[in-house]
């Protein structure tokens, strides 16, 4: 399992990458592996204000549907429209292919998220 060091992770297997005010959100390698072949990604609407832990979309595979919970609060300012035509991008490279970008201007709240190391340890408890 691949877990880049520069990201923050949630227990729901999302990652956040912070660039200035922007928070890029995606799903982890563990998540894409658990879901299997992803067939559809329902993206959030632009300008939607999201509280911590609120649903910002749904990811569907052939045999599963998973709600995407926002690991940080903020306003949706970009969505990755490539995923509409090619949801398999999330299987191919879950860390390069972000799902949405939130404006985190008021974000002191990356707390509760895990480092790569902590997330790896967390995933191991799930697999055992």
């Amino acid at each position, binding site marked *: 399992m691949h877990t880049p060091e520069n990201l923050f992770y949630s227990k729901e297997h999302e990652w956040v990458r912070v660039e200035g005010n922007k928070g890029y959100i995606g799903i982890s390698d563990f998540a894409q592996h658990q879901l299997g072949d992803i*067939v559809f990604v329902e993206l959030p609407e632009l300008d939607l204000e999201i509280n911590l832990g609120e649903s910002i979309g749904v990811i569907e595979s052939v045999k599963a549907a998973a709600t995407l919970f926002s690991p940080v609060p903020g306003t949706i300012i970009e969505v990755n429209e490539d995923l509409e035509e090619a949801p398999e991008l999330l299987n191919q490279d879950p860390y390069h292919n972000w799902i949405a970008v939130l404006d985190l201007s008021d974000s002191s709240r990356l707390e509760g998220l895990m480092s790569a190391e902590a997330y790896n340890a967390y995933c191991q408890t799930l697999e055992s």
Partner: protein
Amino acid sequence: MPKLIFEKNVPGSNSFSLPPGQIPNPAISKTIPAQFLRQEALNLPEISEVEAVRHFTELSTRAYGVDNGFYPLGSCTMKYNPKINEWAARLPGFAGIHPYQPEDTVQGALQLYYEMQEMLAEITGMDGFSLQPAAGAHGELAGVMIIKAYHQQRQDAKRTKIMVPDSAHGTNPASANVVGFEVIEVKSNQRGLVDLEDLRSKMTDEVAGLMLTNPNTLGLFEEDIQEIATIVHEAGGLLYYDGANLNGIMGVARPGDMGFDVIHVNLHKTFGTPHGGGGPGSGPVGVKAQLLDFLPKPITVKQGEEYRFNYDLPLSIGKVKNFYGNFGVIVKAYAYIKALGAEGLKEAGQHAVLNANYLRHQLRDDYHIPLDRLCKHEFIINSKKQAENGVTTLSIAKRLIDYGNHPPTIYFPLIVSEAMMIEPTETESKERLDEFVQTMRTIAREAAENPELVSQAPHKAVIKRVDEVTAARKPVVKWEAGVKI
């Protein structure tokens, strides 16, 4: 590959005709204003009768029903569908009656409805039934609505949650959600039964009810059912019985005697009506006395020697379906119950359980059985032993197709990994069961000696495994002229 019906289109080849009308025949554009008339082409196919008959006959040869062979699809109760019942439902006196005919012109149908309500109440130990719901999930929907309406009527608005075991059919949590309840999942214990401690710890006065399948989806009887009922009732909740597995106790024990308040039964599972390739079914909903007023209307009543529909039920949740339920299906189930009678129903239940336990016993040397003890009408095995050679449950299921069987239900219940859920039903002979055992042993041997053979199955079906991923990523859900795929 057979062509689609649209690819057989020969304009002018269809010879359907109406008798002469003997009435004026003006152009439609003269009698219906243009704003209501269709401009867009229809594009329906035109095919001669003989070619159409061959088309559908060919499709039927590419389908597999109970009449083709063994169909151990767990939780689906694929028992034999008696042929006399098909004859009965097609009698003009049943098939040719309009739902709005005056009641005195349909007394036979109403008598059948009345008796059916009574017989289902006796078989399940409930006090009354409505035959309205069109399917099991529809009966569940009505049942959960009854639970909601009951609490509302008592002005107990805080009951916003429904409890569902983690082994439950997906319809249970979905039904609760659709009726506007929050779903709380109750864990199963190591014996595969409801974990009483978990149930107690999650039970509050916000719980409207618990939905339970008994025998559960592992094929195990919930031995603590009376205690479960007490926990739910003492907290002011109601106990819901998902009748999908009623066949496992039919004629031996009754949900009504176990403390269940609301129940649906699947006539297309327990009572021998055919599944139709996905429907129609019928899912009558039954209740205990204190809930009778909430049943979906109408209910059939008997007054003197006359039968009629009663719509005067002020607390009823209302109608869930047009007219009166799936009458044609109910005729078949009525015939089934009449044919078997009290003793026959009990024997059906007993033999269903005997067949399941016999199969479980015969398969245990070759397959892992996570909960290997007395089961009811079905049981779970998995592919743990075969996994050592990289053979999955899916592959075993597909290999069964090569040997002329329908596979069992796979990957359900969710709490057992790589599950195969096997329900033979009572209408299978020992010879059939032994053949299936031999086939399963052969597959186990193949999985050990030649795992590739199993992993690439089926080899003898009309197609190989299908690309489900592309089907869902780039859905093609209808035929279009000129579009080549």
